[in-house]
């Protein structure tokens, strides 16, 4: 897994590529914790190159979501593939997260 952090229209954009599992979730968690410690209003996570995510990845996003909610920030998950989306639905997390289809829509609401 690789993580790249950039700016997108004034917001933090984290692009992940590769499987997110117990091994890589650790590194992802560190990066997102570091980022959110500065309380950015919006964090975009681009999952277009993430073919697979297990419960460690999901747990990481739940944790970050909670951190951000505490200070009123918003976490947006962009380009989640259908297989992962199904796991989010099964876990009843699809309504808790802001899951956005396209980068262009991520900043619309």
């Amino acid at each position, binding site marked *: 897994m690789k993580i790249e952090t950039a700016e997108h229209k004034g917001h933090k954009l984290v692009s992940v590529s590769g499987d997110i599992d*117990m*091994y890589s979730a650790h590194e992802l968690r560190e990066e997102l914790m570091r980022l959110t410690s500065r309380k950015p209003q919006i964090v975009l996570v681009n999952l277009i190159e993430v073919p*697979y995510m*297990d*419960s460690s990845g999901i*747990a990481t996003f*739940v944790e970050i979501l909670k951190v951000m909610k505490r200070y009123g920030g918003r976490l947006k998950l962009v380009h989640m593939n259908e297989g992962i989306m199904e*796991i989010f639905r099964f*876990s*009843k997390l699809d309504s808790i997260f802001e899951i956005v289809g396209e980068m262009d829509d991520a900043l619309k609401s």
Partner: protein
Amino acid sequence: MKDSTIITIPSHPKYLSVVRAVSVKMTELHGLSAAEAEDIKLAVDEACSNVIKHAYEGDTGKRIVVRFRFTKSKLEVVIEDSGKMHPEYIAGRNLDDVRPGGLGVHLIRRAFDVVAFDEKKKKGNRLILTRYTKNREKHED
């Protein structure tokens, strides 16, 4: 036993990807659909992650043995460790209670019809995951 495929890995999370690769190849070879293969891969990954977290409490220097066996009627995946024994698989959290963790067991039960520990195992744990091939609906509830 001669018809089974066994992957033995160190109990380090980095080897989970090896187990997933074997899982995918095995289900592919036995003609399962891509969607089925994904569910099984995830479940086996979760079961191995649980061994690292709970049975070995994060010790990455132990071993995990994962055995795949296909018969006409079922797929059996057996996961063995030499870690801390535990009486029963905890149920996983209520899915309406949103918090990190507690999903793994649900994802395992989603892919397998029967999830059971072998009571006869002396040291460590032997988790037996069974998925019936035909009439899957009949076995699901």
